[in-house]
C-alpha cells in the first residue's frame, strides 16, 4: 500500500515522468545473472531496477547492478577493431574495419585448422556462453578450450559433482526457508551474490543460527552469529573434527546413509591387487552390500535389502568391508579429534566440539517434517519428508587451495552424515542436477587434433578412470594446459592459469594463436602478473614472438588489450543478445529449472559487435561444420540470436528450454521462430517448475527422476546414489600402484597414489609444505568487495568512489608485534616476489592471515583512468606475489586432482617499508596508453541532469 501524495504546495513534482519505456534483460555486472528492468528516457538509461518476478533476485539488486549505467557509459569502452602496430605492450594500435579484422583472424585460424588444430588455444574468461564457445572449439577441432573455471571454483564443482551429483552455487542452494543452522565456508562476498543476501535476510528474520567459517570477519561474516576465523587451508581439518565428534556420539543418520548413499557398498580389501579398494560388484556390474537377513552379498541397488554398515565379509573369495566402516575408522581416529586439530586450525577444541554438538542437536532434535507425499525411486509411497535443518554453502575459500577438492568433499560428507542433502532445511539441488556420479560426457580429444576435422565432442567433460585421460602415445598431455593428464587428471574446467606459461615454455608444445575473451590475463586474472607480461612479450632468437598470435575480445581497454595483436571490441551487456542456458550455467533454483536471455535494450553508438556473433561469423568464414549450410553459406546469418533460437545440440534440444515447438513445449521441441519474443514477454527468463511432490529427495524421488529424464537432464530415471566413497578416485590410485592399462609415469606415481584417496583427506597446502614457515609466517588472501567485480568495476565512476585503493588488512596484534602501525606502507614478500601495500589494522582477521580486496589495482594508463588514479598509484595486486608454479618446481600451483589454481595457498612475510618508501605503492610497471577512441574520463560527471529537465 503506497501513500497518496499529500497537498504540500511546495512545488515539488511527486510524479515525474520516469521512463519512455522499460525493457527487461539480464544483468552482467557479475556472474549472478539477476533479472533487471532498464528504464529508458530518450534512448538513455534512466534507472536500472531489479525484476521482482525474476527467480534469481526477486526484485532486489546489488551495489554493482545499480551502477550498471556507469559501466555502459564507461570512457574505457573500445570503439572499433584494432590491430597492434608497435611491439606488444607499446600501446601502438591502428583502427581497422571489421572485414579486415575478421580476415586477419580467419587467415591465422584457417592455417592452424588445416595443419594442426591444437595450435589454437581458445580460452574464454567469465564467459556465460560456454555451451557455444565449447561447441565452437569442438567444431574447430582443438582440445585446447576452457573458460575461467580452473582459476575460479572447479574444486567446488568437481568435488560436488563427483560426490553428491550436484554442487554448491551453480547446482544447489541452501533451503533458506527452512534451515535452522547455516554454515558458510570461505565465501568471499559473492557466488552467488544476491541469492545469498536474500537468504541471509530470511535467516535473520527467522532467528536461525548463522556460522561463518572464514579467516576474515567482513561482509557476510560480519552479521554471522558466530565467526570462526580459522587459519586458511584448514577448513578440511575443522570439518573432519566435526565428523569425528558426530561419529563418536552416534549422531549420524544411518537410515539416510543406507538409503541414499554408497555407505553400505562393499569395498574389496585385497592389497597389492587390481581390485583393492574397488567396489565389489555382481556379474552385471551392480554394487554389492551385505544383507543382514539373508547373510549374503546382494545387489546394493535393490530396494528390499537390509544392508550392514560394518564387518568383514567374504565376497567370492575376497575380503570386503562396507564403505561406511572404512569412513568411520578414518575419522574416529584421534588424529581427527578436535584436540588434535585445534592448534593447526587456530580454533579452540571446545569451539569445535560445541559447534558439532549444535549441528547434531539441530539435525536430530529439531528435525522438521513437511507434509509432502512423495514416492521414492523404488515406488514406495511416503506421506512426509523429514528435514535435518542444517544447511551449508562453501565457495572460494575452500576452492582456491591445493587441498580444496578433498575439503569440499569433506563438507559434502558431513552433509550426508547428517542426512541433510536435498531435505527440508538442508542443501537442495538445482536442475539439471542431480545427475549421475560422475555424469557424462567424457572430455573429447583422446586422439588429439586432426587437420580440418572437428574434435568429436565437447572439450570439457568428466573422466571416470585413467582410460579417459587425454594422453598421447607417450603418455604426455594432449592439452596445452595439461588438463586430464597425470598432472591434473580430473581437471573438469581446464587450467586457464597455465596456458600462457606452458605455451611459452613449449611444454607440452608451442602454440600458434592464443584466442581469449573476457579474461584479463595481462593483469588481475593471472598468477605472477609480471612473469605473465614477460611471457606475452617473450621472443624467439629470430625476433618472432613465442606466442605468434594473440586475439582478444573485450568491451573495455583492459591491460590485456595492450598485449594482443588483434582486438575485437565487444558490446556492453545492455547492447547484446545472450542466453543463460541449461546447457551451460542456467538460472535454475531448487523448485524449478530456468534459463534466461539478454536482449539489447540500447543500440551501440560505435562500431562494436557482440563476441558470440563474431565467433559465429568466424566459424562461417572457416566453414566449420554446423556453422555453414550445405552451400557453405553462414547457417546463422542473424548472428547469436539466430543461433540461440535455431541451433539444436540434439534433435529438439537447443540453447533455450522455454517456448519450444509451437510455443508450449518445455525442454524438448523444434525451434520456435517466436521464442525470443516469448522470452521478452515473460521478462527475459523462463522458469519451469518442478512438480510439487518432486522438490525434495531429488536423487531418489521417482517423480523428480521422471521429470528430469523427460526434460533431458538425465539419461535414465534411476536413483542417484551419493558417494561417500569415491571409486573413480581409487581407480587412479590403483593405476599409480601398477594396475591397469593406463598408468602414470614413475615420477607421478607417488603423487597420484597419495592424493587420489577415495575418502576425503587433509594435507597441508603445497606451498605451505614447501616453504620455510619462519621465513613466510603469514597466509595472504583476497576477497572481492561486494560492490566491485574484478576489474570490471574499476572504470565505473560510481563504484570506484567507494573503493579505489585496497589496503592490506592485518591483525592488530600481529602487526603491533612487528612495529607496524595503521596506514604504514609495507612490503609483502613471498617466495615468488614482493609488492608494496598500505596496511589497515583490524581485529577481525585470523592472526596468521593478511588479506586485501581483489583486483582494485590497475596498470597506470589503463581503463581510461587518469594516470594518477589511486588504482595505479596506491592500490596493489596480490597476484604479484603468487606464482603459477610451486616453489622450486615445475609443478603447477594447483589442486592435484582438479588443477584448480591455488590462489589462497600463498605464504608471505610482511615488513614495514623504509621511511623513504612510505608514500605510495611504488609500482614500476610502465604506463599503458589508450587506443584510438579511448580517452580518460571527464573530470566533471553530471549524469542524470538530462532527465530532470525532461521530467518537468
Amino acid at each position, binding site marked *: 500500500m503506497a501513500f497518496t501524495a499529500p497537498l504540500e504546495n511546495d512545488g*515539488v513534482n511527486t510524479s515525474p515522468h520516469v521512463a519512455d519505456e522499460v525493457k527487461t534483460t539480464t544483468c552482467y555486472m557479475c556472474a549472478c545473472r539477476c533479472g533487471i528492468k532498464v528504464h529508458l528516457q530518450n534512448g538513455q538509461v534512466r534507472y536500472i531496477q531489479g525484476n521482482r518476478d525474476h527467480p534469481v533476485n526477486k526484485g532486489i539488486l546489488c551495489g554493482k547492478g545499480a551502477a550498471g549505467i556507469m559501466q555502459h557509459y564507461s570512457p574505457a569502452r573500445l570503439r572499433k577493431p584494432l590491430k597492434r602496430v608497435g611491439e606488444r605492450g607499446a600501446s601502438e594500435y591502428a583502427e581497422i574495419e571489421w572485414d579486415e579484422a575478421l580476415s586477419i583472424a580467419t587467415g591465422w585460424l584457417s592455417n592452424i585448422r588445416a595443419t594442426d588444430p591444437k595450435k589454437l588455444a581458445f580460452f574464454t574468461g567469465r564467459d556465460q556462453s560456454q555451451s557455444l564457445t565449447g561447441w565452437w572449439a569442438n567444431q574447430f577441432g582443438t582440445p585446447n578450450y576452457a573458460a575461467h573455471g580452473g582459476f575460479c571454483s572447479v574444486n567446488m564443482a568437481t568435488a560436488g559433482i563427483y560426490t553428491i551429483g550436484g554442487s554448491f552455487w551453480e547446482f544447489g542452494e541452501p533451503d533458506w526457508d527452512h534451515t535452522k543452522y547455516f554454515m558458510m565456508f570461505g565465501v568471499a562476498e559473492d557466488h552467488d551474490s544476491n541469492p545469498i543476501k536474500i537468504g541471509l535476510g530470511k535467516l535473520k528474520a527467522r532467528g536461525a543460527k548463522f556460522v561463518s567459517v572464514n579467516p576474515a570477519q567482513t561482509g557476510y561474516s560480519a552479521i554471522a552469529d558466530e565467526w570462526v576465523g580459522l587459519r586458511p587451508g584448514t577448513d578440511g581439518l575443522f570439518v573432519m573434527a566435526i565428523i569425528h565428534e558426530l561419529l563418536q556420539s*552416534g549422531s549420524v543418520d544411518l537410515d539416510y546413509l543406507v538409503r541414499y548413499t554408497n555407505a553400505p557398498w562393499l569395498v574389496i580389501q585385497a592389497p597389492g591387487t587390481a581390485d583393492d579398494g574397488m567396489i565389489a560388484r555382481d556379474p552385471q556390474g551392480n554394487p554389492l552390500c551385505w544383507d543382514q537377513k539373508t547373510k549374503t552379498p546382494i545387489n546394493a541397488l535393490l530396494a528390499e535389502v537390509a544392508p550392514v554398515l560394518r564387518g568383514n565379509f567374504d565376497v567370492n573369495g575376497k575380503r570386503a568391508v562396507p564403505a561406511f566402516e572404512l569412513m568411520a575408522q578414518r575419522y574416529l581416529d584421534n588424529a581427527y579429534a578436535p584436540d588434535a586439530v585445534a592448534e593447526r586450525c587456530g580454533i579452540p577444541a571446545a569451539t569445535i566440539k560445541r559447534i558439532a*554438538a549444535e549441528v547434531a542437536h539441530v539435525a536430530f532434535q529439531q528435525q522438521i517434517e513437511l507434509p509432502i507425499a512423495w514416492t521414492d525411486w523404488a515406488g514406495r509411497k511416503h506421506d512426509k519428508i523429514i528435514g535435518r535443518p542444517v544447511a551449508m554453502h562453501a565457495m572460494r575459500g575452500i576452492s582456491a587451495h591445493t587441498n580444496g577438492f578433498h575439503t569440499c568433499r569433506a563438507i559434502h560428507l558431513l552433509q550426508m552424515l547428517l542426512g541433510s542433502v536435498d531435505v527440508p532445511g538442508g542443501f537442495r539441488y538445482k536442475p539439471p542436477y542431480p545427475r549421475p556420479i560422475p555424469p557424462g560426457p567424457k572430455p573429447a580429444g583422446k586422439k588429439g587434433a586432426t587437420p580440418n576435422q572437428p574434435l568429436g565432442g565437447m572439450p570439457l567433460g568428466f573422466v571416470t578412470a585413467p582410460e579417459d585421460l587425454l594422453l598421447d602415445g607417450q603418455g604426455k598431455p594432449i592439452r596445452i594446459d595439461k588438463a586430464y593428464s597425470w598432472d591434473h587428471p580430473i581437471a573438469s574446467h581446464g587450467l586457464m592459469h597455465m596456458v600462457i606459461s606452458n605455451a611459452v615454455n613449449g611444454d607440452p608444445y608451442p602454440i600458434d594463436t592464443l584466442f581469449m575473451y573476457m579474461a584479463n590475463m595481462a593483469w588481475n586474472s593471472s598468477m605472477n602478473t609480471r612473469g605473465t607480461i614477460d611471457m606475452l612479450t617473450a621472443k624467439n632468437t629470430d625476433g618472432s614472438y613465442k606466442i605468434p598470435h594473440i586475439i582478444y575480445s573485450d568491451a573495455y581497454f583492459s591491460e590485456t588489450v595492450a598485449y594482443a595483436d588483434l582486438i575485437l571490441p565487444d558490446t556492453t551487456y545492455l547492447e547484446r543478445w545472450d542466453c543463460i542456458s541449461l546447457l551451460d550455467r542456467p538460472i535454475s533454483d531448487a523448485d524449478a529449472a530456468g534459463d534466461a536471455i539478454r536482449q539489447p535494450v540500447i543500440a551501440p553508438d560505435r562500431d562494436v559487435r557482440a563476441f558470440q556473433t563474431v565467433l559465429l561469423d568466424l566459424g562461417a568464414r572457416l566453414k566449420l561444420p554446423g556453422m555453414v549450410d550445405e552451400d557453405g553459406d553462414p547457417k546463422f546469418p542473424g548472428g547469436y540470436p539466430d543461433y540461440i533460437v535455431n541451433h539444436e545440440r540434439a534433435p529438439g534440444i537447443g540453447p533455450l528450454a522455454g517456448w519450444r515447438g509451437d510455443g508450449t513445449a518445455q525442454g524438448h521441441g523444434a525451434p520456435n521462430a517466436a521464442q525470443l519474443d516469448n522470452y521478452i514477454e515473460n521478462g527475459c527468463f523462463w522458469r519451469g517448475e518442478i512438480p510439487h511432490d518432486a522438490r525434495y529427495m531429488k536423487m531418489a524421488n521417482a517423480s523428480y527422476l521422471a521429470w528430469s529424464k523427460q526434460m533431458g537432464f538425465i539419461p535414465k530415471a534411476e536413483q542417484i546414489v551419493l558417494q561417500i566413497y569415491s571409486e573413480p578416485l581409487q581407480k587412479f590410485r590403483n593405476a599409480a600402484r601398477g594396475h591397469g592399462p593406463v598408468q602414470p609415469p614413475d615420477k607421478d606415481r607417488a603423487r597420484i597414489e597419495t592424493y587420489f584417496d577415495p575418502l576425503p583427506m587433509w594435507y597441508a597446502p603445497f606451498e605451505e609444505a614447501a616453504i620455510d614457515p619462519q621465513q613466510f609466517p603469514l597466509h595472504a588472501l583476497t576477497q572481492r568487495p561486494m560492490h566491485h567485480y574484478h576489474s570490471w568495476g574499476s572504470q565505473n565512476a*560510481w563504484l570506484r*568512489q567507494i573503493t579505489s585503493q585496497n589496503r592490506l588488512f592485518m591483525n592488530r596484534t600481529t602487526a603491533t608485534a612487528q612495529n607496524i602501525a595503521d596506514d604504514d606502507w609495507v612490503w609483502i614478500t613471498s617466495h615468488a616476489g614482493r609488492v608494496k601495500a598500505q596496511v589497515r589494522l583490524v581485529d577481525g582477521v585470523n592472526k596468521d592471515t593478511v588479506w586485501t580486496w581483489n583486483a582494485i589495482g590497475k596498470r597506470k594508463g589503463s581503463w581510461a583512468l587518469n594516470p594518477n588514479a589511486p588504482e595505479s598509484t596506491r592500490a596493489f595486486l596480490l597476484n604479484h606475489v603468487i606464482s603459477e608454479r610451486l616453489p622450486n618446481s615445475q609443478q603447477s600451483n594447483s589442486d592435484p586432482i582438479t588443477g584448480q589454481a591455488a590462489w589462497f595457498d600463498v605464504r608471505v612475510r610482511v615488513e614495514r617499508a623504509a621511511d623513504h618508501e612510505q608514500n605510495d605503492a611504488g609500482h614500476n610497471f610502465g604506463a599503458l596508453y589508450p587506443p584510438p577512441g579511448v580517452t580518460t574520463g571527464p573530470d566533471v560527471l553530471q549524469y542524470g541532469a538530462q532527465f530532470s529537465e525532461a521530467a518537468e
Partner: protein
Amino acid sequence: MTSLPATTDKKLGLVIDLDTCVGCQACVTNCKEWNTGGLMAPLTDLKSYGAEADGVWFNRVHTYEVTGHEACGASASRTMHFPRSCLHCETPECVTVCPTGASYKRTTDGIVLVNEDLCIGCKLCSWACPYGAREFDVFEGVMKKCTLCVDRIYNENLAEEDRVPACVLTCPTSARHFGDLGDPNSDVSKLVASRGGVDLMPELGYKPTNKYLPPRARKDSAAARPTPELKPITADGFLGWVDKLLSR
C-alpha cells in the same frame, strides 16, 4: 532563519537493521542512480576518473570494527556496517539555520528538503547537521540531500509496489524499511517496538525520524545457545551401535 512545522501529518522515514546489513552498497548505488536523475539531479561527480574522486551521494555505508562491546558476543570484535543518510529529524537545526528558507520540513509527511532555487550555498545547514547528511554540490554551488525519494513514493508513473525509496526497494537483505513512524500501528513502528529500535545520538535533541535496529545478541557461546554436549557411545562403541537393523 527558517521555521519548522509544529507537527507533521505523517512522519515518513526509514528503519535500518544493523543486525542484517552486510555492507554491500546496494542502497548506496541505487540511491545514486535514482537521484542523479531525480528531484535534485544531478548528483555531480568530480574527478570521476582521477585521484580523489568526490561525488554527491545521499546515502553512504561505513564499515568499521567495534571492540569490547556486548554486541561482539564471544569475539573480541565485530565488524559493523553503518548506512548513513538524512534522518528527517522532527526538529532539525539544518532547517532552522537556513537563512533563505531553502531548507524546509514538509508539514504533510515530515520530509526535509532543499529548494535549490532558494539555496545560496552558504553551507550553514551542513555545519548544523551532526549526522553529516548534507551533501554540497561544489560544481553547482547548492546543497543537496536525501529526499526520501519524494519523487518515487507518491509517483503515479510507478507501479504501486515500487513506490518506496530506492534504497528500500533494492536492499538485498531486507535491512531497510520505509513507512510512517508517526503511526504506532504501522509496520515500521511495530518493528521498532519489537526490536528495540533506537534514535541516533538522541542526546542532541533533534528527534530523528529514522530509526536503527541494534544488532541482535550473538549465539556464539555455550551460554548464549545452550546445547547438550555430545557424549561418546560407550556400550559397544560406535561401530557396535551401527549394527541395528537398517533397510533401504
